[in-house]
């Protein structure tokens, strides 16, 4: 400390001389510099002194006058953020609550609404679309996964087990609400009308892919559907979502931003920055955490020691709820309420959905190496969100076995057709490699493109033939 002060004094003296020599000395700069150095010390001492004196002076009369005491005669500190009560007791706050935060759910495992559950009835039309989309998502995953295994696409990642999260949250929003996804949320696009052909085009990276074949499969994005393009680095979408929400706020839009992320993503600095940022900026954003138990091979017990994610909300001053992610009605209701609060009260909301990643992390992963098959099977069969929702829809007499078989065979057909088409559509032209780095290609890229084209002419055998040059 002493050394630091000596040094800094030396520095300021030294600089003063340098600058002074040039006749550029600026008094306000130097006075603010000095002030900066001394103020933290003053700040530390003053309050302590004041309060220790006050303690002895305590009287009822004074209490009425300035209300610096609570009902138990404890001194109150008026501190930025609100009043804080002093206590003579030294007590550390427990690292965990006595009880874990409850999980909101509407449907039990048999698709029966619990008697006293508060939920909004949804129409037959919405319910049937939700169920159909959940089934479509499952079939799309199965068929694309198979296509990857056959070597027809380079990579894939399923959403199996998280269909309710995908579809029910999408159903509770409007298409004006802006989505910043992680990568396990294609169901929102599906709900908004992104076609199976469009999904296939992206996975095959053909010239109809809006991303022009530049990213890996499953990195969907559609401006038309208010769905930002997926980015591989984990959690980067979170602070961006806050910025997007702030923009909606400034434009006075009747819409919010919803950003999705996994349990693993919550360990990133971006998660913390985003929650804090959103709370301070009062941004209308819903943070939707899919707590599916795993981040590739890392279980949540190795990811965090808090009561899940929901408990983080309060620390940042954000209202939060824990919901059963495998209960479509609970997700629908929670998101609808969250949206209403986010927009009408202009505030962020944190939602933690408890679920399970039933599939492997991706086609590059074999999850039986790090988790018991029995666990996977339990969630795949006994806790399947699609089956649970189906039971409820059937109980309402909105769905028959005939509807089921028609839907399944039609989706299968559409998907196989989409894959065939996507496979035949040619790859994006070579020129697309050089565009969009900037709004217009600068000369260095034009030059490199020219050199590349000459090289292709000389050595055509070195290059893939399905990319038009």
């Amino acid at each position, binding site marked *: 400390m002493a050394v630091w002060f000596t040094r800094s004094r030396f520095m300021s003296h030294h600089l003063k001389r340098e600058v002074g020599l*040039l006749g550029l000395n600026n008094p306000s700069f130097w006075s603010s510099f000095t002030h900066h150095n001394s103020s933290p010390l003053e700040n530390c001492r003053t309050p302590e002194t004041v309060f220790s004196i006050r303690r002895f002076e305590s009287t009822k009369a004074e209490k009425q006058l300035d209300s610096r005491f609570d009902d138990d005669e404890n001194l109150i500190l008026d501190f930025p953020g609100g009043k804080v009560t002093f206590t003579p007791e030294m007590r550390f706050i427990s690292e965990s609550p006595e009880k874990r935060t409850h999980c909101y759910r509407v449907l039990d495992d048999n698709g029966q609404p619990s008697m006293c559950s508060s939920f909004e009835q949804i129409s037959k039309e919405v319910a049937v679309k939700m169920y159909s989309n959940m089934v479509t998502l499952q079939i799309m995953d199965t068929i694309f996964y198979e296509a990857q295994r056959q070597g027809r696409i380079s990579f894939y990642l399923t959403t199996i087990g998280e269909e309710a999260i995908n579809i029910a949250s999408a159903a509770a929003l409007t298409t004006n609400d802006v989505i910043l996804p992680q990568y396990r949320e294609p169901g929102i696009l599906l709900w908004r009308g992104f076609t199976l052909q469009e999904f296939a085009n992206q996975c095959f990276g053909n010239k109809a892919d809006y991303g022009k074949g*530049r990213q890996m499969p499953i990195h969907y994005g*559609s*401006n038309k559907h208010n769905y930002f393009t997926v*980015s591989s680095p984990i959690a980067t979408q979170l602070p961006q979502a806050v910025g997007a929400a702030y923009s909606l706020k400034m434009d006075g839009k009747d819409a919010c931003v919803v950003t999705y992320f996994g349990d693993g993503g919550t360990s990133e600095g971006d998660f913390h920055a985003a929650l804090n*940022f959103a709370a*301070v900026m009062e941004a209308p954003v819903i943070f939707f955490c899919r707590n599916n138990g795993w981040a590739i091979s890392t279980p949540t017990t190795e990811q965090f020691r808090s009561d899940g994610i929901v408990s983080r909300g309060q620390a940042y001053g954000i209202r939060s709820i824990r919901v059963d992610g495998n209960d479509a009605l609970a997700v629908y209701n929670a998101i609808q309420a969250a949206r209403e609060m986010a927009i009408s009260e202009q505030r962020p909301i944190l939602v933690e959905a408890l679920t399970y990643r039933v599939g492997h992390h991706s086609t590059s992963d074999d999850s039986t190496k790090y988790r018991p098959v029995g666990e996977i099977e339990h969630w795949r069969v006994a806790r399947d969100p699609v089956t649970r929702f189906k039971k409820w829809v059937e109980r309402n007499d909105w769905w028959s076995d005939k509807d089921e078989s028609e839907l399944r065979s039609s989706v299968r057909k559409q998907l196989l057709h989409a894959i065939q088409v996507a496979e035949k559509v040619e790859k994006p032209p070579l020129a697309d490699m050089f565009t969009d780095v900037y709004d217009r290609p600068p000369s260095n890229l034009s030059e490199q493109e020219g050199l590349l084209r000459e090289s292709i002419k000389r050595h055509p055998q070195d290059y893939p033939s399905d990319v038009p040059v």
Partner: protein
Amino acid sequence: MATRLKRLERWASLSRRGFSTSCDEQKLQQSGKNVNLFSAINQALHIALETDPRAYVFGEDVSFGGVFRCTTGLADRFGKNRVFNTPLCEQIVNEAAKFRYRSGNQFNCGGLTIRSPYGAVGHGGHYHSQSPEAFFCHVPGIKVVIPRSPQQAKGLLLACIRDPNPIVFFEPKWLYRLAVEEVPEHDYVLPLSQAEVIRPGSDITLVGWGAQLSVMEQACVDAEKDGISCELIDLRTLIPWDKETVEASVRKTGRLLVSHEAPVTGGFGAEISASIVERCFLRLEAPVARICGLDTPFPLVFEPFYMPTKNKILDAIKSTVNY
């Protein structure tokens, strides 16, 4: 210490004289007061917020005026909704740079300009004197711009803010207070990706940017005493950079020297050198010289050893001309 003093004096003398400006920029001289670099930046930010209701200024400490005073008065004038502090959060390389490309031009982060202080300042040490421009130059999707003076800073910053690409705008710390020149008060922009010949010459071309130009200018003055005529070029925009201006100059002089504060290995000088060798190999009369920072973290007490000083440059000018 002596070196530092010299450097400051040097700058003062240079800024009094001011760099020569090219013809299309003569009109900039018409009106204006003498201001330093941070005031010029401040003027540009005021104009940006005034002329575009969707322009925002946010970042660490900007609300109270900023550590270097560049954002003074903005929050009062334009309100805390448009000028506000944020927790620090950086997504330049993976996000801003690739936003347009990865979405097939469906999304972009448009007029994002990231202002950052950079470079040596006499007492910054490892972290606060670094020159990380080459990192950013190696990330396709972002532009990198560095001004050499207050007048340049204002015009280039406004051009960056109005450019539809994400740009990292490095402000040489050394010049914030010490560089003073006449800056027009009106709204003006200077072209991006256009280098400027700030001193014409015939024997050797010198290329640099930011605060280093003042050191190079001194070397040019001293070389002239030995009968060597140096052409000095301010690159201004590092990515995408103006090869044509540098190439034309080297075709004339047959020799090239690049100088920057950042470490020589993998520095942007390497890129300039490689490109010019590709384009002017037969015209070159000597190897391209690079007088740059050393490949160490920026060392506090050894700063004068580390820096690409006037005499290092002068020696290299002589050996290149006499090769």
